[in-house]
């Protein structure tokens, strides 16, 4: 069998918990032949490359990486005169704003965050009247807490905030005159990041604002994203 080493050159988060095995993002990868037949599949992370095996008679192989959003990226690996080859996927040009790159694989492939800024972008300005409330579950009751972001970022198409949350259950309530009120669960026990961007889907069920959350446990969160989309083939590759 010939071997393919597939690496992920995705920037690690500055806020991952030390020694957390779930800290680095892991994504499913497949080796395909020119007809699209799957030769092997596995999981590549920024800390551990995938080692894929393909038949000895493989000349050109194609390696496909899949994001939770369904977006795929394909690279070729020429094995016609060698028994091993390496392929690296990078997140260098993943987003117009470096600070929002972490959220792009979880959003619709057509998200405006993934393309150069355009005057036609549906801006966050339309949602100026959106309000946010933070709730903490303590002593058997939900209590409202002051929302005190420790870091904030904003562009024409997204707003992002980092929160330091204690060990408890937390909810972020989002609402507004043009936005259906709803609660979003936030992970307690450390720093959490929330990115809010206008709807990027034509699905009539989609909320006016898309809220993406991370507690910097990329591996576990990516797996949950695939599970929530019933993408069982990708789930199997990651587990």
């Amino acid at each position, binding site marked *: 069998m010939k071997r393919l080493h597939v690496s992920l050159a995705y920037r690690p988060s500055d806020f991952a918990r030390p020694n957390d095995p779930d800290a680095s993002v892991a994504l499913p990868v497949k080796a395909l032949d020119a007809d*699209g037949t*799957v030769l092997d599949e596995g999981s590549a992370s920024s800390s551990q490359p995938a080692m894929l095996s393909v038949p000895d008679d493989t000349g050109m192989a194609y390696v*496909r990486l899949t994001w939770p959003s369904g977006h*795929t990226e394909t690279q*070729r690996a020429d094995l016609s005169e060698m028994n091993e080859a390496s392929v690296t996927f990078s997140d260098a040009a993943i987003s117009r704003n470096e600070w929002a790159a972490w959220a792009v694989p979880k959003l619709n492939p057509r998200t405006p965050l993934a393309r150069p800024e355009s005057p036609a972008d549906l801006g966050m300005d339309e949602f100026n009247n959106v309000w946010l409330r933070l709730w903490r579950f303590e002593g058997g009751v939900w209590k409202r807490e002051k929302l005190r972001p420790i870091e904030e970022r904003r562009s024409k198409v997204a707003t992002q905030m980092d929160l330091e949350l204690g060990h408890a259950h937390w909810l972020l309530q989002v609402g507004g005159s043009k936005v259906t009120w709803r609660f979003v669960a936030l992970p307690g026990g450390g720093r959490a990041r929330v990115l809010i961007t206008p709807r990027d889907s034509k*699905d*009539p069920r989609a909320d006016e604002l898309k809220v993406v959350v991370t507690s910097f446990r990329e591996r576990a969160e990516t797996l949950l994203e695939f599970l929530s989309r019933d993408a*069982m083939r990708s789930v199997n590759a990651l587990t």
Partner: protein
Amino acid sequence: MTLLLDTAAEGQPGTHVLAIGVGSYPHLLGGDKKLAKDPIGLGQLDSPPVSLKAFLDWMLAPPGNAAGFSNHAAPLASVEAVCSSKAAVTVDTPALGQVPLEAATRDNIQVAFEAWLDRMRSHPDNVGVFYFCGHGVMVADQHLLAEDFGRTAQPWTHAFNISLTIRAVEREVSGAVFFFIDSCRNVPRGLALTLGADPQALIGADLKKNVSCQHVTAIYATGEGQLAFAPTGGKVSRFTSALLCAMSGYCGIKNPGEQTWNVDGDNVASAIRTLLQHNEPSKDKQVSDQSIQGPLIPLLRIGVPPKVMVRLDLAPKERRSLYELYLAKGANRVAQTRVDQVFKVDLPRGVYEVGALDPQGALPLVRHEDEDLVPPMYMLTLKSQP
């Protein structure tokens, strides 16, 4: 009940199909019998009998057809159907000729379901298909309406709870089951505000039994709280059209060591969603929904690679008639030369070079290497700059 095919071989796994279509509702608006006390705004449907017949014709198509059922590991073993329509629906069958379908009353559905479930229990590796097209509503669970809905003062005795039925089936069989539910999932106010509007499941879920089913895929025509649509004039519904198109060679994956291209819950759900998205008119959006559990077990195993509907365009549009748009894989190349329209072609899945060249050599070459054409659709607009 009407058994259209029964070729199950003892000791061998097979695929068992139960298909239900309900277009005629005599007790709902426009019906010819006593109107239900609260018809919850529902009337007669043109599409379900047509959709059901298209589904059955596809299932019963002779082997070797480009479209039709194919699975050597679980060949088609039985097909059972009930249908309610103003005009009688008959189906061409391989062994019995033209067979008229019995009405899809709640009692007939119950009998057909129990017979289907018995057949499903006959082998641990059987594959089941449950198809429904007709009226559906939901509150917490989804309810599907039989022909005689509204016949009595308690109309919900003539409907069934498909959500609980799926949970029960998971404990009754051990193979794989695919549910295709082509109906609306909106929440009628009359239903939400009525205590006792609780249709029964077709079989109770015995929670003393463990979940035994290896795999369950349930694909719904639309999302929770949303409507499903069909073209006017008694045509196949949007969801059933997308389902049949997806299964007719527009999805499938060939796994390591496999000889066939397999259609499973994962890739058929994804294909249906894509086809619905691209084939729908500008209004009345319909986005399918799915639930997939357990290791993927193929519904179909097909000997040829799936096809991809290619839609290749060039921007700016004024330059379309100056270019040759092409796709090439090895020695195979297809092209559209200097035509002012989108290049539409079906190609086998695979990795292609996609591009546009000016036969005169004056305009810049546009070239995308290694484009992965994944079924069911590939759409790209090439950009000629400056």
